[in-house]
């Protein structure tokens, strides 16, 4: 009886109404941007070398920040989910500090550590004549600082949800700790890691406050798309809308094509 099956699939009204309101709230601002966008300007903007430089820099730095977040964030998540040590809940709260901290303040905090007169930065400057602020590396650091917590929270949630008995079974069968982690734990939490990486990448791509404070704004070196958008907003709001739509379109294309690859994988 197909009719019955349709009825069973129907979403309860108590869920549907708030879902629709929520969706409208999330989507309407985008619709507002689309309605105001001066589409005729789009081809000219797409051909601008400065815009392309900002876009290229954004994609490169956000990807680098995601790789760094994976390298350091997954181990942090494991420590928080599986480690047994005093002060774990305090540590967990500290890891989420960058989520709460206004990004501009995060940028100042990074300057106080890695800046030319910062705790680590002063040593780097005197010893190796190395300055981190105003460089592409600073952009990556700012993005990693702000976006890594998203990955950690997501992976930790996946690790807590994973059945620990598989790991125990592998261990009793003689697998070492590293083998258990790479062959059992990681594959089990892979969806959580991917979701966290996507969230992390998206957050890094949109990063503004910490970047402009810590890395400054220099075209081609530290001017990412959000910075270009913000400055365009000062003089030419319509150009800013076009630039942000380009950033949105590129990120949607990247995420959609990645998803296709993941689901196509065996």
């Amino acid at each position: 009886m197909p009719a019955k099956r349709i009825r069973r699939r129907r979403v309860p009204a108590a869920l549907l109404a708030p879902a629709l309101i929520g969706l409208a709230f999330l989507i309407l601002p985008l619709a507002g941007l689309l309605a105001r966008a001066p589409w005729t300007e789009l081809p000219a903007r797409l051909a601008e070398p400065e815009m392309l430089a900002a876009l290229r820099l954004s994609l490169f730095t956000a990807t680098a920040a995601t790789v760094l977040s994976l390298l350091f964030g997954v181990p942090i998540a494991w420590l928080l989910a599986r480690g047994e040590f005093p002060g774990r809940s305090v540590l967990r709260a500290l890891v989420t500090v960058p989520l709460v901290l206004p990004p501009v303040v995060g940028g100042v905090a990074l300057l106080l550590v890695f800046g030319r007169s910062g705790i680590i930065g002063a040593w780097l400057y005197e010893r190796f004549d190395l300055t981190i602020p105003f460089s592409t590396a600073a952009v990556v650091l700012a993005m990693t600082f702000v976006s890594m917590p998203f990955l950690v929270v997501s992976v930790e949630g996946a690790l807590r949800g994973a059945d620990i008995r598989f790991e125990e079974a592998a261990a009793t069968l003689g697998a070492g700790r590293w083998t258990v982690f790479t062959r059992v734990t990681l594959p089990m939490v892979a969806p959580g890691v991917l979701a966290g990486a996507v969230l992390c990448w998206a957050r890094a791509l949109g990063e503004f406050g910490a970047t402009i404070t810590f890395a400054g704004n220099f075209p081609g070196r530290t001017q990412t798309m959000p910075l270009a958008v913000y400055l365009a907003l000062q003089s030419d709001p319509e150009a800013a809308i076009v630039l942000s739509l380009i950033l949105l379109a590129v990120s949607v294309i990247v995420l959609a094509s990645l998803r296709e690859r993941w689901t196509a994988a065996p």
Partner: protein
Amino acid sequence: MRAKATLAAAALALAPLAACTGGGAEAGADGTLTVFAAASLTEAFTEIGERFEAEHEGVQVEFNFAGSSDLAAQITEGAPADVFASADESNMDKVVEAGAATDPDTFALNRLVIAVPEGNPDGVAGIADLAGLDFAACAEEVPCGAAAQSALDGTGLAPVTYEADVKSTLQKLTLGEVDAALVYRTDAIAAEDEVDAVEFPESAGAVNAYPIAALEDAPNPDLAAEFAAYTLADDAQAVLEAAGFQRS
């Protein structure tokens, strides 16, 4: 039917949200004057506001300090403001072109200086001395950047960073990340505990005029006109001069 009911529910739920999108300034109340002023006016206008309140019984002056271009956008999008004081003419022009103001008056001038750490360790005496130093300036899109660019034109010098506003440009210097910063004279004076200001002749061609205007849709039009005129009077001009502005 059901879909319609859901939509109605959605509209009802969103209605209160729509009602509170007017921005922070609650204008219209008797005796409350809302002034949108450029961030570089923060110190001077706060004091001028207090003096204006003291002279006008029952009047309360509320300020919204931000970048001039942000303020211009807020005003042209219908933010309820009485007075607009801009850090440059182009943002005031935008507001006038949108029909939100007429006949602005220039009430102050601001010129660029080279801000250096206290004691001037690199011995900066002019713009040419910036060669070989790391220095910060505003981006060309904002008023202080347009002035900086005209001062740097033809020198072949470029800053390490083009900041989004003058306060963050100065902040890069006070945090020790750069050796010098091109900022307004007023900002250097406001931070005189930490920085020294070096005047340079090229800045004569890089002077910003600050226009002020009562807005067409001012909730409190009489008071708005009075405040705009007050900034030109001797009392207010003395405050502006103490802050480092020049008379127009």
